[in-house]
């Protein structure tokens, strides 16, 4: 009970801090700066992901209609839109987590390096190793220590890392921006960490299995503004080596971390992808009136 209440508070605080009546022009200038800092010369690693004609249903409820999106290797794409428009549903079709919900169904293709992850005979567990996921609410394993949490993916998927465990531990925690804070208490239980630290621990845990794509569903919405900034830093670092797709309800966050932004909307019917483009263009001169309305804060 307590933790739910806390996280709600944190969520509200986060929104208060971040939504300072976003004006189109200020957002686009942030995005433009960010985009210019990125160095296209550094050939990014990771893999491209292509969603083609994705539909999703919950029972009879058609939640997502015909969404196609390309995620180029080594880019950060933000998915924005009012709540209930299908962002989470969409991102969960990208690593086949959608199918865990009883009654859930989907149609369409998701190509990882050109190969459909829904193809018959595909080993789902292998797919999820390549396409990692960070959830809205930090969810470390409470029965494990900090170190065990980071390495849990290796055990869960019964794989071996080419590196030795200590090196891997340090590397993942460093990349997730948590190493200096926890290096002296790797044997402590994860429950003792703050919400923001737990979320970075979850990021480190995803990194240990060396995914090519990382999906993040509102990873900061349960965190205070300080932790949010740290995670945004982390995302910037990670984008050098993998493809990142992040759902966020915070448009300034989208502007700060992403190269591309896709706008989702539901007009009462199934959610649709309205428009996608380079983040600075999406915020400065969107093509669709509905995008314009949303990014300038007229609804949502």
């Amino acid at each position, binding site marked *: 009970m307590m933790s739910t209440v806390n996280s709600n508070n944190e969520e509200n605080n986060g929104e208060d801090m971040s939504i300072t009546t976003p004006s189109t022009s200020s957002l686009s200038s942030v995005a433009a700066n960010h985009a210019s800092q990125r160095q296209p010369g550094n050939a990014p690693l990771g893999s491209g992901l292509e969603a083609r004609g994705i539909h999703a249903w919950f029972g009879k409820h058609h939640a997502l209609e015909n969404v196609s999106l390309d995620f180029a290797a080594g880019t950060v794409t933000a998915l924005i839109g009012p709540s209930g428009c299908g962002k989470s549903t969409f991102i969960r079709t990208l690593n086949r987590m959608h199918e865990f919900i009883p009654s859930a169904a989907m149609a369409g293709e998701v190509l990882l390096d050109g190969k459909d992850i829904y193809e018959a005979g595909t080993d789902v567990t292998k797919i999820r*190793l390549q396409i990692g996921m960070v959830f809205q609410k930090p969810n470390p*394993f409470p*029965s494990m220590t900090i170190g065990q949490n980071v390495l*849990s993916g290796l*055990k*869960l*998927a019964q794989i071996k890392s080419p590196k030795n465990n200590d090196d891997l531990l340090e590397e993942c925690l460093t990349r997730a921006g948590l190493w200096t804070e926890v290096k002296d208490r790797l044997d402590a239980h994860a429950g003792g960490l703050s919400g923001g630290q737990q979320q970075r621990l979850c990021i480190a*845990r995803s990194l240990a299995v060396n995914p090519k794509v990382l999906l993040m569903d509102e990873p900061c919405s349960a965190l205070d503004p300080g932790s949010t900034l740290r995670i945004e830093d982390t995302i910037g670092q990670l984008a050098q080596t993998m493809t990142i797709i992040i759902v966020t309800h915070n448009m300034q966050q989208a502007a700060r971390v992403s190269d591309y932004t896709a706008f989702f909307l539901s007009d009462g019917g199934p959610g649709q992808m309205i428009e996608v483009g380079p983040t600075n263009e999406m915020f400065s001169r969107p093509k669709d009136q509905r995008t314009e309305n949303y990014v300038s804060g007229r609804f949502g």
Partner: protein
Amino acid sequence: MSMSSLLILTLIGLFLSVRGFQAFQTQGLGFITKVDWTAGVDGGKDSFGLGAMIIGTLVISAIALVIGVPLSVLTALFLTFYAPERIKKALVTLVDLMASFPSILFGLWGFIVLMPMAEYWAKLIHKYVGWIPLFKMPSPAYTRSPFIAGVVLAIMIIPIVTSVSREIFGQTPLDRIQAAYALGATRWAMIKAVVLPFGASGVVGGAMLGLGRALGETVAVYSVLNIVFKVNFQVLYGFGGNIASMIVGKWGEASLSESKALLAAGFVLFVMTLLVNLLANFIVRRTVKTGK
């Protein structure tokens, strides 16, 4: 526990301890520690030692737990994480129904169906691990052993242990389950990493409830076990007994002093069962509340 059941429990406890008091008085601590139970003939001295039957009770119950708990946990995991929706309801009903079968049915089934099978398993166990003292056989008397009684009790406690485990497993936080799957876990790997650590103390509580039932079981044990009031640690060997079956077996022809001793034995069993059940309730309730 409601007031009325508390009252009834207290009255039973009082009745047993008052009526059995004489036995405690004459036998002292030996009533629990001594292992021979002989009524003095023609004014001779009584020697009532419950030790052998206390040991028998614990041995049979331990066998029931060792066999019953893993089966229950697997059943609960199957029902929670593997069974298709359609057959799940039917299976749950079946397991719950099993809990309400009268124990004589288990006894008869154990005698007619299980005994021949269990005899075969007993021979296998003896053949491969017979060098362990627990599984030694002084002579090939495989029928009606504590092992077979334990197997029958194992089947009897499966419903309660399964239903408590199932309840706990069903409460595993979804976000942890998803975290495991998102890391490429198979279902079984997810269960080992998330569900079992989460549900462990609940399973212990369920096992204690099962133990509470196994400790006091009379009819089923009486129908399959070759009742002999002696210590028997060789669980495959065909004799043994427990407190409840001794009370039933001796009651009919007991002298006045022996019947008092049997009531005292009833009191001992009462206390054992009560303690185990209280502990079980405590564990289960704490687990359900804190969800840890």
